[in-house]
């Protein structure tokens, strides 16, 4: 019992209690700048669904998630399949693609803000030289979110690739041999053997990345601050803005709970979907 006590105390004071406090605060108009603490019932939640900026932030979170997650999973899968072959330098490339995973997203974002810059950015200048006319990526509402997604993909691709590689390695080679005897070509083997057996791994990376994508913040804070024209303002950024810029902390708490419920529901749906597809493949 004594061995659990220090941990239990830390978690109780700095996680469990704040969760309850946050739940309570979401029913208050609580602003530490204006020194207000007034119980308002469900007003914050009602307000949230009429708050255009919050709805916009939810929509942006959604746009980020549905572009980031599928692209990431497909790219990680393709990369891992090719890198699972032992060709010259395959070990080196595995490490190379993994490298961003050890770096801080905030530092990466500083670098990306520079290379995507319209005037002095290497990427913009090179693309223009190649005859692809590009405007200032981060200052145009049409391309800013794309750049944020691109930065996220670059940071997380290798990490997810390593997980897929581990999944690929656990598929017994005899299955491929059997498929080959049955006359299945490489492509057919990929869709009939690799993909079905990789479902648990894919489920894992879809779900973890979905949760991460819903909470995207770092690169947005460093690269665009939610702009231009609120085109990259996502939920967590808006919660941060409400909580720590205007210090409307009660409202920010209720927004955080709405986000939590959304993440929770999406995760549940995903889990059920993957469990069903595993059963259909006769694996469960």
């Amino acid at each position, binding site marked *: 019992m004594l061995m*659990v006590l220090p941990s*239990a105390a*830390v978690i109780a004071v700095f996680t469990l209690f704040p969760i309850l406090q946050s739940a309570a605060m979401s029913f208050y108009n609580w602003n530490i700048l204006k020194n207000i603490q007034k119980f308002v019932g469900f007003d914050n939640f009602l307000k949230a669904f009429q708050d255009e900026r919050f709805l916009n932030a939810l929509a942006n979170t959604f746009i980020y998630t549905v572009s980031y997650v599928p692209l990431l999973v497909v790219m990680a899968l393709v990369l891992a399949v090719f890198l699972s072959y032992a060709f010259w330098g395959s070990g080196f490339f595995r490490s190379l693609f993994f490298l961003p995973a*050890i770096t*801080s997203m905030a*530092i990466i974002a500083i670098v990306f803000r520079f*290379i995507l810059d319209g005037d002095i950015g290497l990427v913009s200048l090179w693309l223009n030289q190649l005859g692809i006319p590009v405007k200032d990526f981060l200052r145009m509402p049409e391309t800013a979110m794309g750049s944020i997604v691109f930065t996220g993909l670059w940071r997380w691709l290798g990490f997810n690739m390593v997980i897929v590689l581990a999944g690929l390695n656990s598929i017994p080679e005899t299955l491929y041999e059997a498929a080959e005897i049955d006359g299945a070509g490489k492509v057919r083997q990929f869709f009939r053997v690799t993909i079905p057996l990789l479902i648990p791994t894919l489920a894992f990376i879809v779900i973890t990345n979905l949760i991460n994508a819903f909470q995207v*913040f770092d690169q947005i804070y460093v690269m665009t601050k939610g702009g231009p024209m609120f085109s990259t303002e996502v939920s967590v950024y808006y919660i941060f803005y409400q909580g720590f810029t205007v210090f409307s902390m009660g409202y920010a708490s209720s927004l955080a709970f709405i986000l939590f419920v959304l993440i929770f529901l999406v995760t549940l749906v995903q889990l059920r979907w993957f469990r069903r597809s595993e059963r259909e493949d006769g694996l469960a």
Partner: protein
Amino acid sequence: MIRVSRTANVTLLGAFSLLGFVFFLPMLWMVLSSIKPEALIMGQPGVLWPAAFTADNYTKLFTQIPFFRFLINSVIFSAGVTASSLLLDSMAGYAFAKLRFRGSQAVFVLVLVTMMVPFQITMIPLYLTMNQMHILNTFAGLMLPRLTSAFGIYFMRQAFLSVPNELLDAGRIDGLGEFAIFRRICLPVVTSALTTLGVFHFMYNWNDFLWPMLMTNTTEMQTLPVGLALFQGEHVMDHGPMFAGAVLSIVPIFLLFIAAQKTFIKGIALSGIKG
């Protein structure tokens, strides 16, 4: 590993060299920019390979940016939190795995529940609590909530479950106390799990952004990612030192990574599971 034919070898090597170069470009650019004279960074932004090299950025780094301060803060924060968390996580994990005490099930379930709640829920009350305790912008405020982690406890519990009970019984017969059994018999068995968790904690905190940003408000207290990201927005400065700072902030982790790649990949994989 599947071996491939000679043609496939050449094709794959060629394709990946190109792909790898494009992928590595941002990092290469960062490293090269850190040894470029300022005039070339702004004057020839489209040129990747600089016509001249300089070490100026690395000396200016310490005069133009409080880089040394950021570095010390990052080390204290990450190393302190890692050490404490390894100790407390393994103690609690051990207790949940091997000791029976009243309410252990209930407490463990509560620990698991806190793992599922995203940080955005607790960050506002935490900020208020730290404010009331007058420890905003101090190491105490920065480190207290990270002294242990629900995830680490869960992870260590799983590791300790694999230690056979016979080993513990042997210790009891030899007359060892419960803490000695933990310290001298069980802990040595789970060292690989401990290293993995240590790498995870260190990297996670070294690279973390939102939490240290909320808790600190002066350059004296900021960690590397926060300090570098904010400093540039608020001060007029040369760009070269910024890139030198970015490079140096990655170097310690990079060296560790080269030294122990396997352990590292396992440790980082934990961060994905946690997310």
